């Protein structure tokens, strides 16, 4: 562990009901934005937050439900969260964001995207909004698709396209920024991958339920299930549920670093430009071993927050847990000290890795980190998903004391 780094916990105090955070991203203005989601509260709505370095707090900047004209009074399942769908333009001062479904309608205790599909209170649909970080204006919004939420999204700014995966039906959609029309490219499967990535040719990739890479090539206008598979634990897994979870482009090499949404997550390096259907390089497991006889939850055995630092190193956060707790419900409260998040640094040149710090959230568990972001001052931010409310982000300072200021963080093209 390094002695000169500090970890800070920044709860979304301005949104005390916020109970999950799936998206954190650096904006085109260099500021760090995060989504304060309210998915367990009936009628809960999501608030876009911006980190204010002076006050050291996240401050609300956009009530997205209001911006897209879908307030809880509608009686429908509410616009409660932004999942892996917060993207920054590299050309304009715009943040793109899309909403996801989860929270029950106001006055109802529960909501199921399957049970309530045909109901009058069904979710109106994922709303995609373009928000100007300078003026604070919502420039436009559109419904991406009715009744479904947006699980994840990626931006191909060169071609003016936004790809997304819908939930629960697991369809890939493409949205044309010029015409603002959405087009259904077909169903992928059932598990619902958590990330979409782009290669240098403008092809968009995700994974099937069986862990195969699935590729949509705009030139062929066809979704292809490829023979290339993400790696998985050799025993007892079959590759099922090895769907992409988090992925980050390598700043130097034409490759993408990724982890899967499956227990026993492994570091994978995707070389998508190799051959017709790319190559997945297995770099081994990232979390502690578990008995193959125990069906451990991917809600506990988890890695996320993949972020490159200005030093060219890859940072990520892996769950660590006490053996006695491995069969406890991972999302419940209690005994947080036995479920922790550990920040790691991976050297892409050597493959060596080392733990740097424990992300310690007072009075709560923090083991499930969704995404990470690099701020212009060199601080790393990691979104913490789990209740109790309010949730928030970890900030890691002091990692890059020698980096020139301000940095120009690489803006993520996918959520």
């Amino acid at each position: 562990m390094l002695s000169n780094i500090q970890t800070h916990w920044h709860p979304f105090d301005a949104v005390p009901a916020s109970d999950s955070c799936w998206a954190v991203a650096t904006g085109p203005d260099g500021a760090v934005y995060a989504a304060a989601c309210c998915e367990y509260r009936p009628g809960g709505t999501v608030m876009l937050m911006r980190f204010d370095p002076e006050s050291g707090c996240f401050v609300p900047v956009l009530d997205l439900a209001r911006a897209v004209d879908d307030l809880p009074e509608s009686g429908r399942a509410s616009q409660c969260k932004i999942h892996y769908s917060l993207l920054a333009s590299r050309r304009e001062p715009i943040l793109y964001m899309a909403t996801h479904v989860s929270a029950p309608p106001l006055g109802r205790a529960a909501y199921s995207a399957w049970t309530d599909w045909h109901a009058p209170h069904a979710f109106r649909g994922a709303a995609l909004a373009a928000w100007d970080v300078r003026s604070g204006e919502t420039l436009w919004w559109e419904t991406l698709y009715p009744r479904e939420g947006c699980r994840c999204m990626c931006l191909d700014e060169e071609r003016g396209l936004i790809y997304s995966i819908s939930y629960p039906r697991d369809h890939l959609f493409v949205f044309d920024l010029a015409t603002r029309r959405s087009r259904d490219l077909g169903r992928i499967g059932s598990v619902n991958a958590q990330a979409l990535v782009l290669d240098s040719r403008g092809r968009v990739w995700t994974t099937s339920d069986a862990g195969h890479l699935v590729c949509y090539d705009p030139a062929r206008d066809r979704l292809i299930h490829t023979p290339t598979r993400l790696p998985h634990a050799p025993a007892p897994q079959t590759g099922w549920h090895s769907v992409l979870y988090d992925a980050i482009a390598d700043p130097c090499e034409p490759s993408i670093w990724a982890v899967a949404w499956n227990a026993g997550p492994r570091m994978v390096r995707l070389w998508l430009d190799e051959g017709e259907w790319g190559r997945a390089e297995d770099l081994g497991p990232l979390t502690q071993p578990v008995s193959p006889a125990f069906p451990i939850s991917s809600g506990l055995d988890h890695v996320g927050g993949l972020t490159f630092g200005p030093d060219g190193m890859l940072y990520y956060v892996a769950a660590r847990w006490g053996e006695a707790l491995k069969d406890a419900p991972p999302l419940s409260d209690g005994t947080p000290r036995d479920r922790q998040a550990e920040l790691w640094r991976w050297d892409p040149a050597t493959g060596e890795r080392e733990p740097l710090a424990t992300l310690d959230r007072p009075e709560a568990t923090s083991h499930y980190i969704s995404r990470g972001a690099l701020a212009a001052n060199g601080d790393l931010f990691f979104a913490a998903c789990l209740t109790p409310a309010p949730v928030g982000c970890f900030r890691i300072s002091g990692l890059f004391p020698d980096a020139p200021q301000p940095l120009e963080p690489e803006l993520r093209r996918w959520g």
Partner: protein
Amino acid sequence: MSDRVEDKHRESAAALELLSAEKITHRSRQAREAFVSEGLMLALPLAFPGVTSPIPADESHITAFASDGDHTIYGGTSVAHGGEHAHGFATMLHGVTGASVDFGPIPGATNVTAITCLPDAIVFAANGPAGARLVTHAPLPVPFDMIQEWFITLPGYRDLGEPFVGETLVDLVPCGGDALLLATETRLLHFNLGSCRTKELAACPNAGAILKLDETHFAGICSDGRFWRYDSCEGTVQMSEPFAGDWQSAKPQWSESACRPGASILLADAAGMLYELDAQLTPTGRKVCAPFAPVLTLATTPDGRVFGFCGEGIARLFVCESAGTALQCRDLGVAVSTVAARRYGYQFGAALTGRDGFLVFGEADNLGHLWLYFPRYLAGSDELSV
């Protein structure tokens, strides 16, 4: 925030408070209740698992079924966005089998709407940009033992006659002798298998699916609501007066009758209304609305229950059965398979009754699976319901 919203929030918070201690249990129950709540569904990939790849995802929307005397199921697919060719396939479930065999892409076809099994050929109604065609493939004999070793040959497709340019085939059935009865979107045709010659029987707007009443009598409903009846001995087609219903905006669906000669038949219109007809197609006066519209498929168990899928986007399984003197429909939930493939099922395009009374549904979606449904056993009472 308005007072009304504050009140609603308080109500919601109170509701959640009651549940908070059992949040995960509650979510699990909710997830269970969304899906098929009676009987058991299994989804099988269109592949020989561990041996072959499934039919390409966007070419695997199952839209037609038929089974032969060996209970081998023959299927036909249609393409979705990006797909190029429809496929034919065979699925074997009995004996040492348990696999689907892809016959390969049908050249020039994007949509198979119907299949019939003849003793020495499987006939596919294959539509494509160049028109409609009858295409045959040899039946697939049981390939020895699909655990130990197997021997499969695929001789390929053969065109039967000339294409029907500018037309779309909707259904086909053997109608006695060496002939097929064909329904297109505009007319009824008699097709001689020996000479491959076609004779028009009647103009018939959207003749729809063909219902086999007995060995020589066939029927259907046009999009204007008139029933047509074909007598293959007389070679005549008779039209009825229009039957009130919505026959325009979605394909009407018939329940099977062939497995229960003389039994009543259900006919679903585009609005999801199910009408009961007797064996002579006379309405009995009983009708009931499916849980959602449109009705996508119907299949009948030997005890007379009719199961089907209905609804757009995420379809739901339902059962239509007698309740005293009335008909009733019960919503059974969204299709899910957790034994065999682990998959949700959202859209279905074909159905048939399998050997021994289980039902087979064809998934009309990317990476379409063949779904087996084993309904709850009824022993004359509900005592087995536990």
